[in-house]
């Protein structure tokens, strides 16, 4: 007999076989000795197992067993609370997360709108033609005359130029002549 037929006999005895198959297997059990023997064996095992399992009893006392279960329930509750906390955290973090990009954007926008103020256009409107008007101090006078001299080569507003810086650097380099060093550098003991 095929293994498939044996398994079908088992399914028939367990009531798991489709009605059409059940008729066939029932006929097989009645007509075939081997099939009948297999069916009898399976029935015997089923009958034996109906006597049930070995009865087991916990040795722990009621109070001890419950105390352990209770402790785990309490621990589970506190874990649930802990788990619920981080779920709030992203909500709190959200505004903070936007501060940096928004702040950066704002800074860029402020810089763009105030560019003229920070890097004034070297024109006659800013520097009056009459340099004598600014003759209150020597610095203003020299700056005014320097700007007048350099004005044609200055780039348009909106384009960064290091020319002015370079000019200052050049001045600094020029001032590295030991003879023009400030007294404090020339003689650090002072």
């Amino acid at each position: 007999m095929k293994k498939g037929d044996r398994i079908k006999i088992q399914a028939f005895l367990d009531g798991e076989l489709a009605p059409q198959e059940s008729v066939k297997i029932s006929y097989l059990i009645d007509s075939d000795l081997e099939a009948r023997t297999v069916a009898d064996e399976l029935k015997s095992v089923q009958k034996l197992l109906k006597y049930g399992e070995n009865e087991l009893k916990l040795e722990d006392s009621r109070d001890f067993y419950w105390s352990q279960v209770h402790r785990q329930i309490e621990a589970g509750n506190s874990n649930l609370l802990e788990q619920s906390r981080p779920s709030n955290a992203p909500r709190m973090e959200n505004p903070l997360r936007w501060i940096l990009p928004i702040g950066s954007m704002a800074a860029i926008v402020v810089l763009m709108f105030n560019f003229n103020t920070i890097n004034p256009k070297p024109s006659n409107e800013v520097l009056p033609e009459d340099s004598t008007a600014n003759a209150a101090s020597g610095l203003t006078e020299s700056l005014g005359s320097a700007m007048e001299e350099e004005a044609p080569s200055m780039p348009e507003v909106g384009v960064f130029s290091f020319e002015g810086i370079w000019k200052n650097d050049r001045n600094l380099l020029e001032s590295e002549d030991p003879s023009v060093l400030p007294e404090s550098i020339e003689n650090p003991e002072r």
Partner: protein
Amino acid sequence: MPKLDIPNAADAELVHSSQKGNMEPYEELVHRHRDKIYARAFSMLRNEEEALDISQEAWVKGWQRLKQFQGNSTFTTWMTRICINLCLDLLRKKQRQKTDSIDQMNEEIGGFERKLPVEDVNPTETMELSELRQEIDKAMEKLSCDHRTVLVLHEFEQMEYREIAKSMQCSIGTVMSRLFYARRRLAKMLISLKKERQR
């Protein structure tokens, strides 16, 4: 509303009260059914310590999910299912680390099945019930984990093939094959027991 007489209340009443968050009735439920839950865990795991841990975990899970219990089955059936699922999870974890057992290989090649003569199994004639239960228990222990689980779920929990397949995450064909092999192996063990007793 009258106070619940906990020691004399029915399971359904205790469950109803526990679902409202009262722990006292739940403690009574634990006390009433803890042996059954532990026995089921032990029948599947065959290890006292693991069975104890799983039974307690089942009660913890039971409390956490108590509001989901609709009363479509009895409370003990519901709790037993939780316990079975925990046992299956543990067995799956263990099985990932283990190679196939000789029983599994035999089942696949059908070697044992061909060799086994079909005999009449009736060792109950000369045995006390408790003695017989112990012998069945011993025989069950010798089965591989998969075969024992299928047998426990089908014979003791009266689960259908389909339900077993779903719980064990395998096909119905595998369940049928395992069940058939487990029964024949059990039959062989009980026959040898009978022969021993006759000597």
